[in-house]
């Protein structure tokens, strides 16, 4: 069969614009970074690795899974130095098998993968409320949540329900928190595909921004570091500029482990007994281990889509576009890992958006703080859902994709309203498709 010249030109134009539908049997460079996760506990790399990188990747997985122990533990010099104040003892404890943290769908419990970060003027507690402490040290407090159900009806019938959280720090171990302190509840995101997102150039993000309507236009998360202007792209608010930055930050704040980029953990001046605690080395995480952790996250693949997902693509992708979800959750993100051009089906624009007051962080006394959120990548969604107890949005409040969509407001209000106006059948088709990504 010979295609008319106009058809060929149209296809080429679509490809050049990066707007070819995902899952198409036409050129699908995105598929290259997807791999089957035959064993969830042993995520594969997205590309063939040379021997040295493979060794670092394997070591990275060991370090990622390892529970760190108190400084001075016999025969454990490579993995000692946890805390004394910490949230959990291993990377895997929060990012279980490298995946997004699971939720606690029932009751008022918070999952192990939850952390309460702090913002604002308080200096006694540092960046995180460390809920665990080694014997002899006082933990910084406990976090409690109260859920309030909210419900409504779709225009075409059917009810929806979400649950709204209110957080508080209970039994603060180092004095009361200031009313102005910002509570920043966060659940652990997945690490899959981090290296690929790191390979998206700021120019590519800028180009996407240029295509977004003014009302939905994202903000690029620029940060100044060591005299350089770097694009933040990791973390719920894109406040980390690289995998190494994000890794060192988490080691220091949530595990109390120093590493070369962060030689101070989250002990504050007010916590002198924590600061005086014997270290597990200087730094506690060796350069070899830090390099291995970064290599693991740089090379780890994105879980492949279910084999039958392509059948859902036509309707689901069309609805995704019709509702405007695609304006921020970009279906084609150009990247150049190692200089190789790829198109990532990450479904993010790596930019910050205001999603309204409902999702915004609050101060201790309940005032809303305007919050900007990095568009969460949707790739690997099928893998996430298969893990059970899904927990979406920045604090895991949404127990389903439907709840997650319903929390979108602010710059995403029009997309949410378009979703609400779909028929029940269309909503299910769209959610099923997103759940297959």
């Amino acid at each position, binding site marked *: 069969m010979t295609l008319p010249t106009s058809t060929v030109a149209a296809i080429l134009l679509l490809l050049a614009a990066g707007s070819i539908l995902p899952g198409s049997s036409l050129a699908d460079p995105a598929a290259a970074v997807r791999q089957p996760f035959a064993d969830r506990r042993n995520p594969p790399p997205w590309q063939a690795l040379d021997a040295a990188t493979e060794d670092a990747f394997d070591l990275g997985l060991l370090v990622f899974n390892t*529970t760190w122990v108190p400084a001075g533990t016999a025969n454990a010099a490579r993995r000692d130095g946890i805390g004394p104040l910490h949230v959990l003892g291993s990377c895997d404890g929060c990012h279980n098998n490298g995946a997004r943290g699971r939720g606690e769908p029932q009751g008022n419990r918070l999952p192990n993968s939850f952390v309460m970060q702090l913002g604002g003027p308080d200096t006694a507690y540092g960046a995180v409320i460390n809920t665990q402490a080694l014997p002899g040290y006082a933990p910084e407090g406990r976090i409690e949540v109260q859920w309030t159900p909210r419900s409504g009806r779709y225009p075409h019938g059917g009810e929806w329900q979400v649950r709204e959280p209110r957080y508080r720090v209970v039994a603060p171990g180092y004095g009361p928190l200031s009313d102005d302190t910002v509570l920043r509840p966060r659940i652990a995101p997945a690490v899959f595909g981090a290296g690929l997102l790191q390979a998206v150039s700021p120019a590519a993000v800028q180009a996407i921004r240029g295509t977004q309507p003014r009302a939905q236009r994202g903000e690029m998360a620029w940060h100044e570091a060591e005299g350089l202007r770097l694009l933040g792209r990791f973390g719920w608010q894109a406040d980390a500029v690289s995998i190494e930055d994000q890794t060192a930050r988490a080691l220091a704040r949530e595990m109390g482990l120093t590493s070369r980029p962060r030689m101070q953990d989250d002990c504050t001046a007010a916590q002198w007994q924590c600061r005086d605690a014997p270290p597990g080395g200087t730094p506690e995480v060796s350069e070899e281990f830090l390099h291995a952790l970064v290599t693991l996250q740089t090379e780890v693949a994105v879980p492949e889509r279910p084999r039958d997902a392509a059948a859902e693509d036509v309707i689901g992708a069309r609805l995704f576009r019709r509702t405007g979800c695609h304006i921020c959750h970009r279906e084609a993100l150009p990247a150049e890992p190692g200089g190789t051009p790829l198109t990532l089906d990450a479904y993010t624009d790596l930019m910050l958006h205001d999603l309204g007051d409902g999702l915004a962080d609050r101060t201790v006394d309940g005032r809303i703080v305007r919050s900007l959120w990095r568009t969460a990548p949707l790739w690997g969604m099928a893998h996430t859902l298969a893990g059970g107890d899904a927990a979406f949005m920045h604090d895991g409040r949404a127990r389903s994709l439907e709840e997650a969509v319903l929390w979108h407001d602010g710059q995403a209000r029009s997309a949410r309203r378009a979703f609400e106006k779909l028929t029940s059948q269309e909503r299910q088709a769209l959610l099923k498709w997103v759940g297959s990504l």
Partner: protein
Amino acid sequence: MRTRPLVRLGVAALLLSLGAPVLAAQGAQGCSAFKWNVAHEVALFSSEPRNLIAGANPDAAPSISADQLYTLDLKPQEGVHYAAPASKKMLPDGAFGGVLHLKVAKAGQYRVSIDSGFWLDVIHQGKALPAVDFNGSPTCAGPRKIVVYDLPADSDLVLQIGNASTAKAKLTVTPIDAAH
């Protein structure tokens, strides 16, 4: 930082004395933070344990039964030979481990509960059984971690403990139906 040993010792003692009831209270609340009802396991962890020395290999491993609390003596992990590799790879530095035999009369879901975050695997016919679910409560003294397995009846199962940071561990196995 400059050290002030006597002052620090005094304040540390004060903190410890003040901290004891606080930690105890957190322990009680921590156990209620499990996502399941763990009253049965908490009660077992308050019972008199049986002392056992975990095996360094399956041939030398003792057998355990359900609904009994055990205090296990573990061995340096470098000297432990498991029936199958641990299902999660971790650094073994300074870790302790051991091997036990387990057989249940009735097939079904069982909770393996332990008083620390050590790694657990149940090996059946040379392969690690997939965990059905797990939950942990770092503030609960006993149990602290629970893993749920679907266990076959009347099969020789090998329970492997690894990456323990101490040479002792308390452990129970309970059928789900006994736990409400």
